[in-house]
């Protein structure tokens, strides 16, 4: 479960990225976080992943309170999250399989478990036949699917996707969003940050709109139609 209550974030340069943000996401929900550039979407992601600490307010993510979180607890918070980025962030010199192994080794998973889990997630994203390929040998959509598979490796309760379709054409974008929806249906909470209105409107899911660091719209429906300030 994610809960942000009256959250403020002021950066050192004086930018007020979040201004009393309130947001609650229940376990198993699928939520689109939308808004124009500078609305605070990226800061929300950074707050949720422990990358920045809010100036004021309360933040709870999967049982971790992020306002007073100790530095050593942050890796354990991140193990409850699967994070996906627009630029995939795959290691170019490693194969798909080795990228997966790398992510699981980093959290100290035993080799036997690694093999089993990788096989499962690659099947889930439909890439079981491309394990030995290098990222360069895959299409953008496939690379993003590898990133999604990697995010699922440690069995997170929440997936946070930051503009996951920003580098993809509309067909591949829909494919990725459908995959994320399928993962959500398996019980994982999914938060997708995007500004792609058409894509959001193809799904009837909860849409949270941000502007100037606060929520200005929150509801199930069409982004810009019946979800607005």
């Amino acid at each position, binding site marked *: 479960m994610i809960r942000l209550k009256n959250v403020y974030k002021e950066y050192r340069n004086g930018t007020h990225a979040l201004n009393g943000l309130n947001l609650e996401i229940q376990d198993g929900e699928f939520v689109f976080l939308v808004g124009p550039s500078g609305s605070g979407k990226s800061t929300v992601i950074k707050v949720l*992943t422990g990358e920045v600490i809010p100036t004021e307010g309360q933040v709870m993510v999967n049982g971790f309170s992020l306002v007073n979180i100790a*530095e*050593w607890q942050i*890796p*354990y*918070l*991140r*193990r409850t*999250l699967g*994070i996906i980025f627009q630029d995939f*962030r795959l*290691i170019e010199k490693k194969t798909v399989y080795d990228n997966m192994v*790398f*992510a699981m*080794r*980093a*959290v*100290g998973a*035993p*080799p036997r478990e690694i093999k089993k889990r990788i096989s499962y997630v690659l099947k889930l994203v439909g890439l079981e036949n491309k394990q030995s390929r290098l990222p360069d040998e895959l299409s953008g959509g496939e690379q993003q699917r590898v990133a999604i598979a*990697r995010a699922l*490796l*440690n069995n997170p309760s929440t997936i946070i996707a930051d503009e996951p379709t920003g580098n993809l054409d509309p067909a591949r974008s829909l494919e990725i969003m459908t995959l994320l929806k399928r993962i959500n249906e398996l019980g994982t909470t999914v938060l997708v940050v995007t500004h792609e209105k058409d894509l959001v409107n193809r799904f009837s899911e909860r849409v949270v709109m941000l502007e100037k660091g606060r929520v200005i719209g929150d509801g199930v429906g069409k982004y810009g139609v019946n979800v607005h300030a």
Partner: protein
Amino acid sequence: MRKVHNVNSHDIRYFFVEGLSSMFTHGFMSFAAIGITVACLLIMGTFSLVAVNANATLAKLEQENQVLAFVDESLTEQQARNLERKLLQVDNVASVEFISREEAKDAYVAQYEDDPLFQTLDPAIFRHRFVVNLVDLSLMRETKAALERVDGIADVNAYEELSDGFITLRNIAAVISMALIAVLFLVSVFIIANTIKLTFFDRREEIAIMKMVGATDSFIRWPFVCEGFLMGVLAALIAFLLQWGLYSAITSGVSGNDIFAIIQIVPFSQIWGAVALTFLGAGVVIGVGGSLSAIRQYLKV
């Protein structure tokens, strides 16, 4: 309660494989780092071994426990022999043995029997002398002064200056080695730290991914520490082999030369264990110290 990730054998293998791989990836920097560490260890080792041998020579001189008392040249052989009683009355003298100038010449010539230049030496250039054995070597200075006060004794050679020379040599070796070790130690740590920083820079994307998936700080740090450790161990091994060769070459040269006959050489077989352990310890401290220094500055995780 803080969760602790227990490091298992898979992790340790992973850390060392990653460390080794990084070391080879930055071949030139690793070579420079190992090279400077080898230099540091060799200088430390060489000066320490000079000090060890100076100490051994001092110990040998102390064991001999003898001084030479030279008789005034104006005294006849009989008058010289008569001094024996007076010498035995001096405190701390255990025994004395008279050596005439003829005997002294013969002993000297015997050392150079192959050189015709020394065969025709006139015994008159030597002095009658007594070999005086002492009871307590620590009273050498006082005993020497008392012997010098005996009428008819012109000079006393007590190895005192020789001993002082070796003590000075040992002290200089210690001071120089400490100064050089301090400088080279810092240089070694600095170069190893820079090599690790390069590794860190190369692997910044991997580190970002590790952080993103929830790797702990220590898990991220260990491969860098292993890299520094491996460089330190490799440097220690190379330095040990070089030190062995250098020591063997120098000692064989010294042993075969009469000029250095007084020097007591400690065989390498007696000290290799201490040398190896010291090098290993210093190498590990330099390597791991360099890594930690780099991590502290550049790996804020």
